[in-house]
């Protein structure tokens, strides 16, 4: 007899997957009920994730990991500010901490991407001198020029060239990618319904 620890999740996944599919196609209330349960379980999963994160980094904090200490302190502090804001003990401290701390940090990290891309583009022909690299550089320059402020005569011509490139080549390539993703999603759905794919065991 097979291991129940593996057969039970498989059975649940197959049964509820088929029920959801049937509900979405034929019985709408059934689909709403099942999707409501799924959303609730997802919210609980977020809570469990937060608790698990505190547990893991709390044990690392005991061992002296400084970064875990920062993480634990940050979680506890934000939660505490949210509670105090909710209790009226503080006034928008939670939003202030978010705007003054989290947003600049993430913006700073994202802005570094511009520097990295610039330097990589400059050194591209040093590392790889090929026609594809040259084509890549030329395309980047054309699209930047099409979106860059420039004199109107040149700007309009550049805008047309950039629009042509975006509408033809970029859209064509992206559609092909999206079609492939859709086919992959259908295949994964069928595999999950048949029990061949078990993402819940990973």
């Amino acid at each position, binding site marked *: 007899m097979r291991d129940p620890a593996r057969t039970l999740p498989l059975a649940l996944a197959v049964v509820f997957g088929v029920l959801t599919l049937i509900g979405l196609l034929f019985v709408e209330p059934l689909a709403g009920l099942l999707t409501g349960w799924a*959303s609730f379980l*997802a919210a609980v999963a977020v809570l469990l994730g937060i608790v698990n994160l505190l547990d893991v980094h709390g044990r690392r904090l005991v061992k002296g990991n400084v970064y875990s200490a920062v993480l634990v302190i940050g979680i506890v502090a934000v939660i505490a500010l949210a509670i105090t804001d909710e209790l009226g003990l503080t006034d928008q401290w939670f939003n202030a901490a978010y705007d003054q701390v989290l947003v600049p940090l993430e913006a700073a990290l994202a802005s570094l991407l511009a520097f990295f891309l610039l*330097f990589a583009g400059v050194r591209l022909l040093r590392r790889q001198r090929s026609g594809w690299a040259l084509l890549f*550089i030329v395309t980047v320059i054309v699209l930047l020029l099409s979106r860059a402020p420039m004199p109107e005569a040149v700007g309009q011509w550049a805008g047309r060239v950039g629009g042509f490139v975006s509408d033809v080549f970029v859209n064509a390539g992206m559609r092909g990618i999206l079609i492939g993703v859709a086919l992959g999603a259908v295949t994964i759905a069928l595999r999950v319904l048949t029990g061949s794919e078990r993402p819940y065991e990973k």
Partner: protein
Amino acid sequence: MSTLICPECGVENGSGSVVCAACGAALIDLSMPLGDESAGGAQRAEDLPDWLDELRQAGEKSDAPEAEEAILPDWLAEAGGEEMVAAEAPDWLEPEKVDRDQPSKAEPPTAAADEFPDWGQLAEDDEIADLLSALEDDREIGGEEWEPGELPGAGRKADAGEVAEPDRAPMSWLEALEAVEDDTTPPDDLPDWLATDVAESPTEVVATGESESEEIASEGEPAEAPVGDRTDEALEEPLPDWLAEAEPAGETETARDDLKPETEGSLAAEEESKEWFDAIEVGMAASVAFAGDQREAEPPPEHEEELPDWISEVRQQDDWSEGEVEEDSFGEWVAGHTAELKERAVRQEPKPQQGDTKPLKPSKELKGVPEKIAGEELPDWLADQIREDVPMEERESLPASELPEWLAGMALAQAAAADEEVIESEGLPPESSEEWQELLDDLSAAQQEEAVQETEVEEILESDLPLGPTAVPEWLDALRPYRPDQPLTTDLDAPLESRGPLTGLRGVIQIEPIVAEPRRSGKLPEPAPVPDLAKELAVLRQLTRPEELVSTREERIGPSPIEDLPRVLLSLALLAAVLVGWLLPSLWDALPPLTAPTLSSSAGPAFTALEQAGAGNVLVAFDYTPAVAGELDAVAETLLRQLASNGASVITLSQMATGLPLSERVVGQEQGLQVQSLGYLPGEALGLRGLATCLEGNDGCETAYGRPVDGDLAGALGEVGLVLVLTDERDSLLNWIEQVQTTTDLPLVAGTTQTLGPVVAPYFASGQLAGAVIGVPDAAAYERILAAQEGAASGAGAASDLWANLGLAQWLVIVSLVAGGLYFGAAGYSPGAREKKGAR
């Protein structure tokens, strides 16, 4: 050859002469006494055959004339007459007595005389001497030295390995005697009968006497029987020269010793007597074969009637080949041995001829000696030998090493001719042929086996196989620390073990306290420098030198400060462009007229869709993170500005935990905007699927995103006329398009970053998106449109400010890419770069 000088006349005579040829004086003292019989001699006589005992007794009674007359043979009695009997000598011997001093008359009878029959004893000494001398000469003239126990013909047959030729061997021997006859002049004083015999056929007489004497001597027992009458003292005395030469010294000594075992009872004497007996048997076998052949070949002697009776009897008894064996003891004894000798003679006979003799019945009939013969008549020592010794089969197959040389040679010669014998034996009777074949096969098989064993031994010695236990050299065996056959010795002075499991044992080897102590090895001596090998020596020293510790720390493989300078410069330039745009917003206006930001192809429909939503409820999803908040906040503010200007109610939500604070901040900036927040929407696609149910306006919208939805909110959701999704993620946009737009068929407008523009374009082209505002350029253009619509003078806003900063940065990026591409592209085709590439 030595000579004998006659003591009477001084004439030199041959070494074998007994009497002087000139004067007839005796050259050898034939009257040497043998002494009296001892007790041992009497006891030994008991074992003698009856016929010898009778002869002995008759000899003792020879003093009496009656006995003398009875013992003398007829022919001698007739020849001698009454005078000879009375004077104890024949008449023809009388002149000799008168003529000579006869010093030997008073002397006792010699040993030689005792060994001869009475008739010979009665003959004159000179006659006997002549006969013996003739025999001695015959041995020499015959061209071969043959032993007394070996007849001339037998020796040649054995050496040649041929089949005995009964017609030629005796004849050659007789011819030799005839040749001697010319030189030997019969004495004048011989008796008539003897002179006549000698004159007519001296060879025959001599040959007959010789053959008879040789047969007796070779058979051993009859020849030695008279010796048994001698005393031990006589045995110790040296024999006469002629007898010593005629008889092998070894056999004589052996014969003497063999007569002692019964008195001494020595085991060694028995073994020696066994060897002696074997030698006698071999000699008898040869003589029997020769005698048989001779009888068949030569005619009976002409003076057969003149021979003594006892010789005739002996001759009759010796006719063993005819199967006539008397029942007396000697006959039984001789019959037993004769049968065995027949077997050996037949086996040794290389090529027996059918018809010459009766086919002997070899081994099978001779295997068991009759109990009667073996136990009663044979001497005890001989009977024991036969009983206790190995079986006859094994005795017959004795190895060649135990056989006499002449017999071993004969056996080898027979084995060499074994194949020919097999073919020639086809004429033999079937039974004897098979037996012969078996005997020859056994002999050849034994020889082959022996040869195979010798070959194997040689192969083992030549091969590298481990030596057997018996092949361990002595020096190696001496190194063996312990021999199992020797008891272990314990040193009693060794200390007694008082602890541990070996308590009570002595001589326990103590454990070494320090097993090994690490130490630095001594410095190797410097090798002698060789000029030609100096370099090789240096290399070897370098190889033997311990490797130096190399730091495993990897050196920093990064650009040098000079190489890193462009990176720093680019960073500073990009930062300066942003700062200039942010600190000097008026600078953009001071620049030469540049192209104003224009709406993209998707931004215009988005403006139209927002305008169509009017004052209705608009669901705005803030699905982005603070990382892209700088770009999307500008887009969100522009769109919310339009919605606020239209008087629309906004219901905000987010699928990201960090989206809700962003929404509150952006929504809070717009004045007059009615906002309701649904908060965080978990479940991604499923959450959006449930939300779509509420957006459809059905009554079933009791819960949304995991929590119950009150009636007002549920009604607001059911009245939503536009969905605005602000996101920088592809999955979030796809979920909104796939789960909400396709289900509710509500217009969906996307506000995204420029990086997500290529993803938005296909859905916009397909109509699933009503419009899309992509990045800061569209936001800036959107502000310009809104400003134009509202009648604002500048229309400046957050998006327009970012557009100025972004414009400078984009130009800087364009310049940098072109410069870098040109520089590195041209450098890659330079000659130095080609050489470097070729080197790699």
